[in-house]
C-alpha cells in the first residue's frame, strides 16, 4: 500500500504516431504482440504498491477502457483499489487547448477527493520499468519538492526528437526542461515521470491553468525550476519512447532480441496484460519461423523472419513476413510477401502479392484494410 496515487497521462500533442493513432490512444497501441503500451506504466504502479490509479484519455477511449477493465488483471484489489479512466471534453488531438493540465482541471474534484498525500505521474507512451516505491521513498527522504526521472542517451540527434530533455546541475537539480532539438548526441531525456505531494501537484495544475490555457504540466514545471527544488533521478535499464511512427516500429523490433527483452522483463517485476484466452499457436508443416516473437492463437504455414506476430494471426502457405510488426487478427494470404511493415489489427493482405516498404521508412497498413 503506497502513500501515493498514480496518474497515467495521455500522450501530449508533441507525440504524433501516424496511422495507428487514428484508431486509439497511444496507451492502447499493441506492443510486442500481446501487450499494450499502457501495461507498462500500470504494471509499474501495481508492482510498486500503488492501487489507486487515474488513467487520462482523450479521443477513442473504447479499446483502452475495454483493455483496462477494473484492473483486476493488473493485480489491483477491486474494493480497496481503484483504476479509473478520466475523460476530458478537450479531447481533440493537436488542439492547443487539449493539454494534460486542462484534463486535470476538468477532473479536479476526483483528484481532490483522493486521501493520499503523494502522486506519481507516468506517461502512457514510454516503455520502461521502474520501482516507484523506491522513487517515492527517496523523494521523501531527499526533501525535494519534486523528483523526476530521466534517461541519459547518446543518440538524441536522431531519436527522441519529440521528447523533453533535462538540464541538470551537479547536485542533480533540474535547471530547465527543454524540447529535444536534436542538436547534441548526449541528452537527458525526461521520462515525464514525476513524484510530488498531492498538494503541490494541485497547486501547479491550478497555476498552469491560470497562466495560460495552452500550458502543459511540463511547461509549468520548467517555469518553476527556479522556485522549486526539482531533482532529477537517473533511470537505468530498457527504455523506449513511442513518440512517432518510426520509434514505435523500432521499439518493437528491438525486443525481438531476447537479450534486450530480458532487460525489460524480469520475473520479479511482472508486466501484466489482459488475456484474450487464445489457444496456443499452431505451426504447420512447411512453416519456417526464425528470430521472431509470436503471440498465441496464430495459425502459421508460411515463413516469418525477424518479425513480431500479434494474437490470432493467420500466415498462409507460401507467405513471407519479414521485418514486420503485425497486430492481432491479421491475415497474410497465400504467397503474399510483406516486408518492413506495421500491419494494424484485422487487416487482410491477400491480393497484393508483394507489399514491401524500405527498411528506412517502414510502411503502415490500416486497421481492417483488405489489400
Amino acid at each position, binding site marked *: 500500500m503506497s502513500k501515493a496515487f498514480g496518474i497515467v497521462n495521455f500522450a501530449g500533442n508533441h507525440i504524433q504516431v501516424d496511422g495507428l493513432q487514428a484508431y486509439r490512444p497511444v496507451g492502447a497501441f499493441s506492443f510486442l504482440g500481446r501487450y499494450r503500451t499502457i501495461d507498462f506504466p500500470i504494471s509499474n504502479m501495481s508492482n510498486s504498491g500503488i492501487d489507486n490509479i487515474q488513467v487520462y484519455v482523450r479521443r477513442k477511449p473504447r479499446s483502452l477502457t475495454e483493455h483496462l477493465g477494473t484492473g483486476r488483471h493488473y493485480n489491483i484489489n477491486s474494493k480497496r483499489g481503484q483504476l479509473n479512466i478520466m475523460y476530458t471534453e478537450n479531447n481533440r488531438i493537436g488542439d492547443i487547448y487539449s493539454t494534460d493540465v486542462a484534463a486535470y482541471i476538468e477532473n479536479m474534484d476526483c483528484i481532490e477527493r483522493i486521501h493520499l498525500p503523494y502522486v506519481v505521474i507516468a506517461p502512457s507512451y514510454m516503455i520502461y520499468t521502474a520501482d516507484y516505491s523506491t522513487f517515492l521513498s527517496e523523494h521523501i527522504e531527499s526533501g525535494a519538492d519534486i523528483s523526476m526521472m530521466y534517461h541519459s542517451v547518446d543518440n538524441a540527434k536522431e531519436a527522441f526528437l519529440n521528447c523533453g530533455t533535462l538540464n541538470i546541475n551537479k547536485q542533480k537539480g533540474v535547471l530547465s526542461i527543454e524540447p529535444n532539438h536534436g542538436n547534441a548526441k548526449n541528452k537527458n531525456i525526461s521520462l515525464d515521470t514525476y513524484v510530488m505531494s498531492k498538494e503541490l501537484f494541485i497547486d501547479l495544475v491550478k497555476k498552469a491553468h491560470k497562466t495560460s490555457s495552452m500550458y502543459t504540466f511540463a511547461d509549468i514545471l520548467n517555469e518553476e525550476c527556479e522556485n522549486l527544488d526539482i531533482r532529477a533521478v537517473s533511470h537505468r535499464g530498457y527504455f523506449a519512447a513511442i513518440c512517432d511512427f518510426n520509434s514505435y516500429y523500432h521499439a518493437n523490433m528491438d525486443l525481438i532480441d531476447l537479450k534486450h527483452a530480458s532487460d525489460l522483463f524480469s520475473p520479479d517485476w511482472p508486466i501484466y496484460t489482459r*488475456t484474450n484466452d487464445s489457444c496456443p499457436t499452431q505451426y504447420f508443416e512447411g512453416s519456417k519461423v526464425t528470430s521472431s*516473437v509470436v503471440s498465441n492463437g496464430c495459425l502459421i504455414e508460411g515463413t516469418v523472419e525477424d518479425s513480431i506476430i500479434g494474437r490470432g494471426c493467420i500466415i498462409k502457405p507460401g507467405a513471407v513476413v519479414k521485418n514486420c510488426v503485425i497486430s492481432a487478427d491479421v491475415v497474410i494470404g497465400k504467397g503474399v510477401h510483406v516486408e518492413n511493415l506495421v500491419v494494424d489489427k484485422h487487416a487482410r493482405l491477400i491480393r497484393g502479392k508483394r507489399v514491401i516498404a524500405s527498411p528506412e521508412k517502414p510502411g503502415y497498413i490500416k486497421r481492417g484494410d483488405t489489400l
Partner: protein
Amino acid sequence: MKQNNMLAMILAGGRGSRLHDLTKKVAKPAVSYGGKYRIIDFPLSNCANSGIDVVGVLTQYESILLNSYVAAGRRWGLDAKDSGVYVLPPREKSDANLDVYRGTADAISQNIDFIDTYSPEYLLILSGDHIYKMNYAKMLAYHKECKADATIAVIEVPMKEASRFGIMNTNETGRIVEFEEKPEHPKSNLASMGIYIFNWKQLRKMLLADMKDPDSNHDFGKDIIPAMLNSGGNLFAYKFKGYWKDVGTIDSLWEANMDLLDKNNELDLNDSTWKIYTEDVTALPQYIGADAVIDRAFITQGCVIDGEVHNSVLFTGAKVAAGAKVINSVLMPGAEVAEGAVVTRALVADGIKIGKNAVVGSADSKNIELVAKRVKGDE
C-alpha cells in the same frame, strides 16, 4: 445472465493412478493439457459457455492444487454476482463425522445441503477428467423436450471397443431401455460419457434412499441409473458428436496432445465462439531464435525455442536450447531441453530439465516415455 435453473456438479475426486508421477502431487483433473490448459478447464469452460452460473467441484484426494485452482472462478468468468465455483471436499457435519466420499452418488448426497441453497430445477453431473467441448444448454433443452427423468450423454464408439464402456441400449425414440456396464457382447455402441442431467427434486429423493441402502455402492452408473431404469423411469440418451477423450494413461494423454497438431482437428481450440478458459499466467510471447526449426508444433506463450521442434506440443515456459531436438513429444510447463539433447516420443513432466546432449525416449518404443525426474547431461 439469468440462471437457467441448472446447477453443475463436477466429480473431480479421481486419483488418476495410471498417470503415475503426473498425479503424485496433483489430482487428475488438474493435470496439464494442450499447452496452456488443465483438464478441468474443459468442463468448467463448457459450463461457463452453456450459461451455467454455479458449479460445485467435488474433490477428494490430494486436492490442494486442484482446490486452489478451481476456487478462482474468475478464470472461467464464473465470478459474477450470483455465480461461483465452489470446492466441495468431504466435511464434518453436526450429524455426521468427517468421512471420504464413498462413490459418485455419495459425493452428491453429502452435498445436498449445498445444492439446496440454490434450489435448482435441474442438476448436471459432470466428470472432471474428460476433454471435450459441449453445450449443456442444448442437452438441457433435449431433456426438457423429452420430459425425461434423467438424460445421459452418449457418444458412439467403435463397436469393437464398446465392451470397455458403459453401454446404453435405446429404443427408436432415444429412450434408454437398458444399461450395461462393460458388456461382453455389447448390443449398441452408445457409450455413456458420465454426463447426466437429473430433475433435482426427484434425484434428491433417490439419493436419500440410496444413502441408507447398505448394499449400494453409492454410484450413479452402478446404482442410481439402474434403479431408475428398473422403476420404469423415463431415461433418454443424448447423442454427442465431436471430440471426446478420457486421458487415463500416459499414452492417451500424449495422444490427446498430439491430436492438436492436426489441421482442422476436431477439438478446435481456436474456435472463438467456444473458448476454453484457463489460468492467465504472466509470460512473454513465444520467442523463436535465429536458428530455430519448427514444423508441426503447438506452442504457447512463455516458450523459448532455439533448437528443433517436430510434431510436438510445448506447454507454458518450455525451453528448447540451440542444437536440441524435440520430436513427437510433449514438454509440460517449464520443461527445459538443454543444448544437443534429443527428446523423442516422450512426455516430459512439469519443470523437468533434460541435460546437455542427453537422449530421452526412442522413435520405436511401444509406449511413450514419461520423464518425471531430471535427466543429467554432459556437464
